[in-house]
């Protein structure tokens, strides 16, 4: 099932600088540039909504510390501290 809730990539749109490195690094091509602009004027990256396999490439390719969060397959929000 590729449309399960997790794994899932989440881009914080206002922290994204629109460099596109996550989009290039995504093996499943499930990250895309938004046609919209964020508060800084960048076309931010966004998750297409399904298809993430939780590889983490987008997270590690992203130069911003806090622009991308990847929830892996075993993620359980109940267990989050």
């Amino acid at each position: 099932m590729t449309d399960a809730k997790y794994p899932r990539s989440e881009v914080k749109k206002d922290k994204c600088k629109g460099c596109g490195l996550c989009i290039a690094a995504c093996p499943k091509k499930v990250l895309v540039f938004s046609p919209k602009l964020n508060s800084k004027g960048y076309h931010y990256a966004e998750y297409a909504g399904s298809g993430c396999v939780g590889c983490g490439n987008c997270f590690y390719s992203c130069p911003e510390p806090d622009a991308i969060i990847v929830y892996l397959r075993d993620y359980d929000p109940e267990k989050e501290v």
Partner: protein
Amino acid sequence: MRKTVLRKPKGFNDVYKHKPGAEKDRTHYCPGCGHGILHKLIAEAMEDLDIVDKTILISPVGCSVFAYYYFDAGHFQAAHGRAPAIATATSRANPDKVVISYQGDGDLAAIGGNNIIQAANRGENIAVFFVNNAIYGMTGGQMAPTTLEGQVTTTTPYGRNVDTDGYPMKMCEVISQLTAPTYVERVSLHDAPHIRKTRNAVRKALLNAKERKGFQFVEVLSTCPSGWKMDPVKSMEWVKEKMLGMYPLGVYRDKGEEAKVITRPVPILEPGTVWEKLGISAEADVDFPRGDVPDEYRKMSIRVAGFGGQGIMVTGQALASVALEYGYNVSWLPSYGPEMRGGTANCSVNIQDGTIGAAEAVKPTMLLAMNRPSLEKFEKTIVAGGTLIYNSTLIDIEPERTDIKVFAVPITGIADELGNTRVQSLVNVGAYAAITGMFNVDHVIELLPKLFKGKSQTIIDLNAKAVKAGFDYVKENF
């Protein structure tokens, strides 16, 4: 424990509170900057290796100068190229800490070239992350030592010409020629698999650093989309196509199991112990009661100037040392040419009760001029109402200023009469004591054995006469 979520690592500060402006939740780096990627890998490794609370990061000059905004670590920011020197001191003074030196290619390979080689050669317990993006990024994309042959930069508009600019500097190869380094690897950020390899290299270097296994050097091929004038994705391709050929990836040195834990002599950090070693009392004791010092002489900024060999520095040191015994705050700052004797020399001395700011006496309240060039040069710098003492034996001109107090004292002559020109310094101190009322001559004489530690009694006695002679001359003539 396996991670179930990848998010901002704990090696970063929650909020970048020292970063100016409103955006304290994101970096200053340009879109697609390799620094950000490497920062994340380091911050993650800091968290995973549980060294957040024991990491000290030395930031360089370059775009990553602001690493201190982001990392939840102790920080020093070093002068250009000097991060390995600061890291050396930090590591030796804090043997239980993990010290990271983060440098760019202009910083490490150009201006700091020798710093990194010496630190590597000593096998300092530091982890160096060397970001190679083939240009000076922060200053606008000039040629760096690592710029590729033919690469166009703002300072090589026709491309780097090896006949005039030399060849790209391969730092991993250079460093791995040395015996001491423990681990040397070149990695790249140009795609996700290589970012993973970089991640492993970062972790290995930091683990070694945590275990104090000597010098770790990780060169990271990175991008500068702004400086290269390319979009971030294209710039990653450029690294792959152009840089990998010149800078082969791989491990250049790994001592592995043979890596030793390197321990240095234990530093002395107890002030009391340091003072004891230096023969100084740890107590801020005041040996002498102060006399009646007129207000104008209570905050002294003194320039002592002459030529080398006239005892300029000794005069300054003696003034400062004696004032210390009266409980003043003092500073002494020498300035002289490369010659030991015969060149021009001067020093600045501050004596006051408050905190001393700049040590240089730019606008002195007192000038002690020992020869004519010094008088000519510094007379105009004395503050209005200040004091000039000049050596009338050697200076055959009159001072021009009328808004200062002037004392013409034949300092060299007085010393010669005592049989040794070299006692001029203490003649100066005697004259100073007489003019300012700050020192009691007997106190100065009492201190002479301390000032001239290891000198014979004859010399001490002669200097005692010199102090008295300088003092008496001023008292009798002014």
